[in-house]
């Protein structure tokens, strides 16, 4: 039923035209970049993927009616029904193991581990089956599944809620490991993770969930559709988050904004720092990272996780192997200390900070 005003009924064309123009303006306004949170971008990515492909399912603990403890799955059960977005019993190994069987049988499950450290009960399924099924079956099976892991700290969380667990997954052959640092990448990378025929551990920096950016989600959806048609993707490509000439800061996920803040302070002090956002830890973009370090000759790798035997250590080793003769100083790491993730009142001592990054930059033998 259409409700018409009396003026329209009387043929008041100008009023109708004015309303149409206002509506068009409102649509145009809506299509312009809006202030969007990373949470909204992730939520929209899942909803768009579910709309595009009925085999995409979302399940985990509290992801249904509640919409997830971080509300990342908000509204998915209402829109897609309880068969496609549902709560499971509280059993992480069960969630991952069942997702494996579903992925074996034609589905594309996107599952949520409620918190980083709560994923550990699922380790056997992830390491022994998710990572290896394609290999064990000599390529006969693929497991198109995404394991979403809210990770890292900086939110004053209680223990077992703030681990940076990316190294465990990155160390396991057969897993892709993505971690977005921007709102647009959150959308872009989650769509690509869901498209991937290989399993992806999707590490979401929980302290960035409510970070905002001016983003046009519809444009990102169109970009994704075009890339998909063209068979291209941003997987395996690091981003130059800020250009610079004097030294390179290499960071990922929650550490990217910290690195950018450090670069802004350094710029005021007359030092031009380039910031690389790794984006996908596996596959790793050696090309972009080494090109930057060859250009600047100096590098600091920044990550929240403990430094010992870490992704940061791997990056240092890779860069050193490839850029040794271009380096003016040893590569420094600014990481979490090798201690269990601290209690809320102590976490700021633990987390890489702007000052700690700048101290490391100062140590890069500028006298040479």
């Amino acid at each position, binding site marked *: 039923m259409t409700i018409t005003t009396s003026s329209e009924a009387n043929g008041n064309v100008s009023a109708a035209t004015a309303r149409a123009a206002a509506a068009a303006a409102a649509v145009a306004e809506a299509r312009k970049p809006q202030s969007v949170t990373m949470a909204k971008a992730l939520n929209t990515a899942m909803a768009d993927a579910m709309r595009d492909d009925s085999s995409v*399912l979302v399940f985990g603990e509290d992801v249904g009616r509640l919409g997830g403890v971080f509300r990342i799955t908000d509204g998915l059960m209402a829109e897609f029904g309880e*068969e*496609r977005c549902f709560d*499971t*019993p509280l*059993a992480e*190994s*069960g969630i*991952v*193991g*069942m*997702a*494996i*069987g*579903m*992925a*074996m*049988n*034609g*589905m594309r499950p996107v599952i949520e581990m409620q918190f980083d450290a709560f994923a550990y*009960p699922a380790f*056997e*399924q992830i390491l*022994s*089956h998710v990572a*290896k*099924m*394609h*290999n*064990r*079956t*000599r*390529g*006969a*099976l*693929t497991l198109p599944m995404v394991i979403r892991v809210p990770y890292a700290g900086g939110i004053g969380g209680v223990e077992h809620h703030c681990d940076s667990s990316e190294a465990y997954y990155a160390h396991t*052959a*057969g897993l*892709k490991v993505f971690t977005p640092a921007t709102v647009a990448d959150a959308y872009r990378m989650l769509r690509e993770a869901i498209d991937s*025929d*290989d399993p992806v551990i999707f590490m979401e920096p929980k302290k960035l969930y409510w970070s905002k950016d001016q983003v046009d989600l519809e444009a990102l959806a169109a970009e994704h559709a075009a890339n998909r048609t063209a068979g291209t993707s941003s997987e*395996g490509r690091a981003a130059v988050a800020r250009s610079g000439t004097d030294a390179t800061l290499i960071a990922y996920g929650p550490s990217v904004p910290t690195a950018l803040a450090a670069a802004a302070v350094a710029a005021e002090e007359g030092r031009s720092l380039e910031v690389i956002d790794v984006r996908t830890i*596996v*596959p*790793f973009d*050696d*090309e972009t990272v080494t090109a930057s370090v060859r250009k600047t000759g100096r590098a600091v790798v920044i990550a929240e996780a403990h430094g010992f035997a870490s992704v940061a250590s791997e990056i240092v080793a890779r860069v050193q192997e490839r850029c040794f003769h271009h380096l003016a100083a040893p590569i420094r790491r600014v990481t979490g200390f090798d201690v269990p993730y601290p209690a809320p009142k102590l976490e700021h001592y633990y987390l890489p900070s702007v000052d700690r990054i700048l101290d490391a930059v100062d140590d890069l033998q500028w006298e040479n």
Partner: protein
Amino acid sequence: MTISASQEPNTGQPPATDQEPGPASEQASEVQRKFGISVEDYMLPARRQIQMVAPDGTLKPESEQGTEPGHEYPIPGDAELVAAYERLVVGRRVNDQNSALVRQGRMAVYPSSHGQEACQVAAAMCLSDGDWLFPTYRDAVAVMAKGVDPVQAMTIFRGDWHGGYDPHEHKVGIQCTPLTTQLLHAVGVAHAAKLRGEDTVVLAMCGDGATSEGDFHEALNFAAVFHLPVIFFVQNNKYAISVPLSHQSVAPSLAHKAVGYGMAGERVDGNDLVALLAVLDRAVKLAREGSGPLLVEAHTYRMQAHTNADDDTRYRDNAEVSEWKAKDPLSRMDVYLRSRGLLDDDGAARIAERAEAVATQLREGLGEDVPVEPQNLFKYVFSTPTPQLREQSALLADELAREAGAK
């Protein structure tokens, strides 16, 4: 007490606490309608294990088969029994041939199901072509009985690759060495099929020791909560390598675990192929009709050591092994089928010939050295190799080229 409770009309009746309307009560009335027993009696296993043919091969009187109201099992048809017997004989031959191939150094290891062949055969035969089977490392005979090529089924133990077959071809999961992890994959396959409205049934196998694993619990609970057509088939062969069942569980039986998840459990003589087929055929039928998951525990015995690397004299007596030898599934079935007139010497000879043909296939297939392709190391890690894997692949290619050049 809450405010809302006080506002409810006072009926003078005690609050209903046990049977609230919902899926559980629907299940109860469905069970009542279908089997004429309470849901608890349906879920709890019958008081005794189901056994139809005694170890000496004689058919037991119906009153002594362990059946009860709601736990009734008709004897399978003649054609099914004869076909099953053939697979049983082939299975025994496969086990013994494979063990011999290990002794000859043709295979690295073989966990034999010698003595458990009736379970192996029944697990595969109760399923239709479109149904899935999820086996463990000891279930090669079941894998073959479901249609997988015998040589491909043994690839995992030959050592040229981890898995030798495409799971989709015969709907058989890859033989699983981490305990009970495959039960959850079975649950997922069944769940996906259910969402698409397919009537697929999935049978997942594990042993008695494996029931202690966390994934056993998670799989049974998920299957029950999502009401999925999965048969959990536990071969209770009394030992987890060396540890006896008494160290794994003090439950009245493993089948009793079912009721805790809200599913039906049953126990059956795992060396009586007739009873196994009867129980599993019914389980599959019920699962396909929408009864949800079921747990079947089969009492059997691992007649040989865990593998060739194990020494079973360190943890069990010969007397115990001899006792189980008298309960052998083959001789029992042989005597029974002959007594029924379903098997004679000619038939037995034909079956023995077929078993020998499979043994020959194994000897020939596993006897030849299959050249391994080093570049396959990198081929099946991801659908598309990462730049890092391409680099490593080039490194190995270069190494091999230099080795070849040096020769």
